[in-house]
């Protein structure tokens, strides 16, 4: 042994203790798995994925409303998703009896897409609603699922 080796042992013990305290605090403070995919908590991915869904999606609607789907497929609105007009209906899909959908507000609904606007693509069907129908609602003449007259 070295002479006066006690001088080395004591700082070594202090150093080890310090390291131990550091590791203990670090383990308590750093979230579990931090750094697994990158500099973040991997649990955040599951947390964000667990958010509820409001829009059930096209395929879900057509599982029951196949007839409406066929009517729509024949017309110009073939590629407009159900919920684009009818609103978010995941609740209805999960429990159709408890959540009855309300019919869309036609006066505003059609206008949002089809009101004449110079910025809209030229080939897109547009009307000046004030001149077009004289106050008659769109679905007075047009079938919403297959609007071509």
């Amino acid at each position, binding site marked *: 042994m070295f002479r006066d080796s006690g001088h080395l042992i004591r700082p070594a013990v202090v150093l080890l203790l310090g390291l131990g305290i550091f590791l203990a605090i670090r383990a308590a403070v750093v979230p579990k798995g931090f750094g697994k995919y*990158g500099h973040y908590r991997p649990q955040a991915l599951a947390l964000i994925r667990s958010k509820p869904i409001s*829009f059930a999606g096209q395929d879900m609607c057509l599982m029951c409303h196949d007839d409406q789907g066929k009517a729509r497929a024949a017309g110009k609105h073939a590629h407009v998703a159900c*919920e684009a007009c009818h609103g978010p209906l995941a609740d209805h899909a999960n429990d159709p009896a408890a959540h009855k959908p309300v019919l869309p507000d036609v006066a505003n609904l059609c206008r949002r897409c089809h009101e004449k606007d110079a*910025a809209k693509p030229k080939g897109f069907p547009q009307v000046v609603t004030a001149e077009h129908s004289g106050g008659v609602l769109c679905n007075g003449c047009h079938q919403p699922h297959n609007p071509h007259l």
Partner: protein
Amino acid sequence: MEMTRRDLFTIGGKLLVLASVGATLEQIVGAEPAPDAYKMADHWWGMIIDIDKCIGCGNCVRACSKENKVPGGYFRTWVERYQVAEGKQPKVESPDGAMEGFPPLTDENIKSFFVPKLCNHCADSPCTQVCPVGATFISPDGVVLVDPDYCLGCRYCVQACPYGCRYLHPETNTVDKCTLCYHRITQGLTTACCENCPTQARQLVDFKDPKDPVHEFLRHNMVQVLKPYMATNAKVYYKNLDGSVR
């Protein structure tokens, strides 16, 4: 047995070292989460936007707001209307983010068009690089996300985003942004904005899927990303984007 102060410190020190080694090991090994049908490594998400198809109806803005319970006056996606007259600064409007569409524009003699905007889910995102605590990050499938339980609300990322896509949620005081509907796309659904776009002007794409129409789209069209000079490697591609768009 008589215990001296020295004994107490010795035993305490040993226990402390053991506990820290154990805790560190447990953190490294950890418990593996349950297996999942969705494989993050198989996807690399982005979006394509066709300017020639956007009619400025605001369906995407309303859908996003409802799907993600976005607080009023804040937007994860919004639509801008550009009016570009020769020799003048372009006029850009987005009334309430286009939540209710736009008031009709009658002047046919000015170039005008709509530009939907959202988080560009940049592969080299400036926002994730500045977070001091690791609360915002790029997921392994290429989506820029915020960990709401870990965010301090310091707003560094809000300032770092060149596209203005982030905001401080007024209730939680943590940063909020487009998640590319991560809760939907990991279940095989498309995003709320793409689902509800009546003209398919915006489409969710998966760059890692060899059958995805995005490859055809990029091969055959003039595409552009916003602010390419920022070198953010944005993954939202715009078709026929006018040079005036910022």
